[in-house]
């Protein structure tokens, strides 16, 4: 997933954005419901405190002359089988049920969490023993064990909760152990340890804050479980302590009088369902909130339509190039309604056999541009303008036709090779899939061809490795396999999205060398997306510099890198390690603004050392400077672009 789309369009990790109405509904369903659930639970929690004062009758006062009365003005919910006020009893039962559930959850927490924390953090022998025991306990039939524990302790609500607490402690143990284990490996804990912090201190300072969220979620969900289990145990007659009653006890008792007074089951039954529901909703809400972090409030704002003229320059004269992108604009549905433009007015050509680099910081729209070309924008994303490949317009092309081009004439490789290989299928199968689709090979031919391709991209012992699953491949090997897959359709254009970024430095060079060797051999064009100007320098004929969804500078790679014409390009160059002999590394201050925060005027002006008032007001255009160089900076010629970054 592209960084930009991830931050702007889709607040949920790895999730496809939705249509506006549905998204609103979902936001309501999720967060509103979780909020309502929290409110409901707060009110419920107040019942034990204020209940005795608002209950109109003594909950244990029997009146055998007035049994099984329906709801009325004196007894709001009628009376039960002993003539006791159902409303007063349900208020009392709420206190009992909540206190009991809190006890059960508390025992599970107190028993499981500290032990898990210590075992996970200390590891070693203790941890192994504890894990064996926990494994044994997990394999035990939980409710049978609870019944057995109840048999030892005698049936009572408290004992039922002790039993459920013991049974549930393993969940907390495993959660805490997992987190502590993770934290143990983490750098910041190492640092703290080197700094001489004691173990308890490290646990309290560094581990607990990380686990607080998941622990809250687990606690909430355990509450729901315990309430349900308590009702079940009460039903089979374990957990009663009359005349006190929990909801579970009331529900179980009500079963016996279904014939005489069916209404009796409604109040406790509904309360159990609502409360369990509320705990589950709250838990879900909390988990969601934790998983994604809160989406920025600003995302509600609609982005105003860009007034910038298209990069007219794209319409270069001469024969139709292999790929021609004209005035490409990409918009996404914003999470809370409205549309968000993330790429605007992008245009460029890629000639056959040439290498074009697309460079810029993360979040500038490089990957989105590539995805738009491939027609693989996330759901809710829409591209306008023109993408012509070999003279054929790709935007709006029907899926089957697009499927023939993807993986066929246009291959693509991705930043995270390991994540881009499907873990459930062998490497050979996945390469073979492309071969069967595009080269019309049968299964066996595809298999042997896949092995050839793997050998071609430099995988040793390819015939054996081909049958391996992706998780057996190192990052470099996986990227070679991805390249082999992209080559399967004998592409004329290879789109390489940060092909080396996720790899070790030495492997990076090997992969890049492989790419240029293959290009030479096959004469294919490459659209190389990178944030690394060094890669551009090594591989590219032409470079395009993107910033905040626009191309801000374009030109022959060598010329552009030796003499940048835009302050941003200069800034990128200045921050490259090898360009700063001895001097401290320069940095462009600030960050790339997100799509909903693009400034007016020149989008780079807030970070530009040369910015004037005009820069902040007037939109920029990509102007041709001659010699194949294009630039968006209005102050070009007035300033020494390198000056600001020293």
């Amino acid at each position, binding site marked *: 997933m592209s960084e930009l789309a991830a931050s702007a369009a889709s607040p949920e990790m790895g999730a496809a954005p939705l249509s506006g109405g549905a998204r609103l509904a979902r936001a309501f369903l999720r967060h509103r419901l979780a909020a309502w659930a929290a409110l409901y639970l707060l009110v419920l929690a107040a019942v034990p405190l204020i209940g005795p004062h608002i209950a109109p009758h003594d909950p*244990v*006062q*029997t009146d*055998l*002359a007035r*049994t099984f009365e329906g709801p009325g003005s004196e007894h709001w919910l009628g009376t039960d*089988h*002993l*003539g006791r006020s159902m409303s007063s009893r349900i208020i009392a039962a709420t206190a009992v049920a909540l206190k009991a559930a809190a006890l059960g959850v508390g025992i599970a927490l107190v028993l499981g969490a500290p032990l898990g924390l210590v075992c996970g953090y200390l590891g070693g022998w203790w941890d192994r023993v504890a894990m064996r025991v926990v494994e044994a306990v997990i394999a035990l039939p939980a409710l049978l064990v609870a019944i057995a524990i109840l*048999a030892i302790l*005698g*049936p*009572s609500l408290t004992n039922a909760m002790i039993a459920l607490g013991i049974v549930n402690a393993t969940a907390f143990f495993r959660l805490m152990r997992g987190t502590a284990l993770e934290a143990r490996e983490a750098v910041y804990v190492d640092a703290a340890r080197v700094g001489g912090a004691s173990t308890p201190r490290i646990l309290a300072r560094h581990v607990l804050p990380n686990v607080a969220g998941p622990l809250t979620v687990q606690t909430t969900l355990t509450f729901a479980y315990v309430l349900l289990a308590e009702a079940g145990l009460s039903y089979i*007659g374990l957990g*009663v*302590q*009359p*005349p006190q009653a929990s909801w579970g006890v009331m529900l179980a*008792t009500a*079963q*016996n*009088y*279904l*014939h*005489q007074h069916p209404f009796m089951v409604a109040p406790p039954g509904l309360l159990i369902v609502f409360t369990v529901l509320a705990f589950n909703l709250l838990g879900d809400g909390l988990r969601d909130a934790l998983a994604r972090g809160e989406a920025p409030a600003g995302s509600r704002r609609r982005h105003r339509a860009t007034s910038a003229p298209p990069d007219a320059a794209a319409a270069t004269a001469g024969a139709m190039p292999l790929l021609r992108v004209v005035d490409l604009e990409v918009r996404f549905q914003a999470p809370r309604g409205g549309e968000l433009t993330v790429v605007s007015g992008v245009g460029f050509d890629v000639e056959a056999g040439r290498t074009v680099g697309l460079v810029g910081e993360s979040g500038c729209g490089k990957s989105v541009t590539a995805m738009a070309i491939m027609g693989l924008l996330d759901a809710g994303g829409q591209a306008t303008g023109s993408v012509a490949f070999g003279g054929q317009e790709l935007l709006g092309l029907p899926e089957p036709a697009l499927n023939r081009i993807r993986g066929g004439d246009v291959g693509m490789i991705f930043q995270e090779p390991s994540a881009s290989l499907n873990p459930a299928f062998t490497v050979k199968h996945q390469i073979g899939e492309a071969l069967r689709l595009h080269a019309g090979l049968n299964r066996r031919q595809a298999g042997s061809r896949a092995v050839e391709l793997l050998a071609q991209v430099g995988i040793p012992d390819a015939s054996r490795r081909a049958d391996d699953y992706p998780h057996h491949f190192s990052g470099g090997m996986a990227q070679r396999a991805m390249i082999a897959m992209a080559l399967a359709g004998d592409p004329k254009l290879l789109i390489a999205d940060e092909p080396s970024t996720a790899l070790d430095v030495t492997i990076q060079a090997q992969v890049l060398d492989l790419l240029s060797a293959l290009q030479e051999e096959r004469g294919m064009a490459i659209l190389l997306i990178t944030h690394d100007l060094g890669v551009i320098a090594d591989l590219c004929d032409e470079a395009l510099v993107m910033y905040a969804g626009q191309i801000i500078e374009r030109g022959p790679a060598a010329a552009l890198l030796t003499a940048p014409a835009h302050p941003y390009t200069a800034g990128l160059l200045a921050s490259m390690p090898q360009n700063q002999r001895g001097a401290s590394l320069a940095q462009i201050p600030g960050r790339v603004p997100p799509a909903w925060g693009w400034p007016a005027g020149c989008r780079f002006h807030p970070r530009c050392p040369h910015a004037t008032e005009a820069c902040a007001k007037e939109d920029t255009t990509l102007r041709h400077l001659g010699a194949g160089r294009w630039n968006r900076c209005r102050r070009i010629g007035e300033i020494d672009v390198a000056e600001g970054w020293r």
Partner: protein
Amino acid sequence: MTLRRGGWLATLLCAAWLAACSGGESPASSPDAARVRFGTNNPLVTFDPHLADTGPQFSSYLTLVYDGLTELDPADPLRPIPGLATGWTWRDAVTVDLPLHQGVHFSDGTPFDAHAAAANIERLIRLAGPRINTVASLQGASAVDDFTVRLHLRHPDPTLLYNLALSPGMMVSPAAFDNADLDLNPVGTGPWRYDKARSKIGAVHRFEPTGAHFNPRHRDVPAVDVHVLTNRRARLNALISGQIDIAIVSPTEAAAAEDLGFGIARRANRWFGFTILDRIGERTPPLGDARVRQALGFAVDRRAIAEAVFFGYARAASQPMVEGLGHVPQLENFFTYDPARARALLTAAGLADGFSFAAPVLPDNSVEYEAVQGYLRDVGIDMEITVIEPGTIATHARSKTFPVSTIGYPNFDPDSRHPAIWSATAAFNPFGHRDERIERLAEEARRSLDESLRERNYQQYFNILVKEVFSLVYLQLDDLAIYDAAKLCGVEVGRYIDPMLREIRLAARAEAPRC
């Protein structure tokens, strides 16, 4: 791992599952319409009558496959009538001769004769099962001739022939005495044969009529399935949806079944209340004072509980014995609902501020004790209900854990009750309370063949027991059976909780007198 191998494994698991699911074979048997399907809450404990407790084991299981030398008169289930014995003759106060039916065989083919009968009596004495104290007078047995057995007693025992009509007197094939599985595979002479292959212990026990019983009355019995359904609601549901024809139920379910038009059979068999264990006031001093124990009696509105909690399937009462021996007519309304008097009694005992005590209660009985609790609270007595695990109620009654017991004892046969409950050496007298008056009265009565002396002694006995409240009786409870009246007739509840299965007939093929 290939898909094929996964499929193979799945097949194996499925096969294992199906194999596990396949119980015994399913030979053809009479259709459900021709069977009496009886739902009980009492699982089978043992088919060995000499080791069985009486109660439900007797009436739900043993009576189907075994006969006693005597049996109980269906019209008066406290009166012994001839069974395998054709009658009896007392030679003196401690010797009785019983002539036997001839030509009777056990289900394993072994003939029944006086030697078999004597061997059974000897076995009963040797095994000393749970009911041995009810036939403690037995010293031995001998065969006078092939078809007359003679019983020798240690001392006169007016209740012997009655108690021999229950499980202790049932005749087992001597060839099966040492069968390890006798407890699950009975060998008797009863009107039914136990179909072990088609039974599932704890779920259903099937009985097929032999059609060859020595008593012609029992030759036309229908096949019986005894379904164990421990959940009370499940028994009612099973009857409504047609899985069973008759069930033992609690009053709540009986009331519902009556509403729905099912037949009801009832008999007052047990009393409801407390047995005061700590009568000496060792742990709970107030209970050592008879006035306080009486206060517990006057505080409670018996009629209201009978109506509201037991739906009318109970009767207000003050004394343990419901009729016959030990029933004292003058005591019938000894306790009335009189909270003022209860408070006065407490005040007189120096407990104007009340007191508290704990009572162990089974989950199934908690509702009625909650009702009692409500009334006691009104006079300042705080009764704390401790719900106990079923199966532990007798343990608690043997220990000093609680000052009272809530066991609902049978309301007849005082000869058996005294040594179990109120005697100084009784198992359920953990505090060892000893009252010389009742010890003497009971000992005399239990060894006398003089009915008027027995009558007199037990009248005095219960006069003391009720007025000084060794046990506090609130109600006499009905044991209840609900049944499909269109299918069954002759349904009556016996003395031991369950309907008398030997008397039930199918309405469709029953002859006049029983239906």
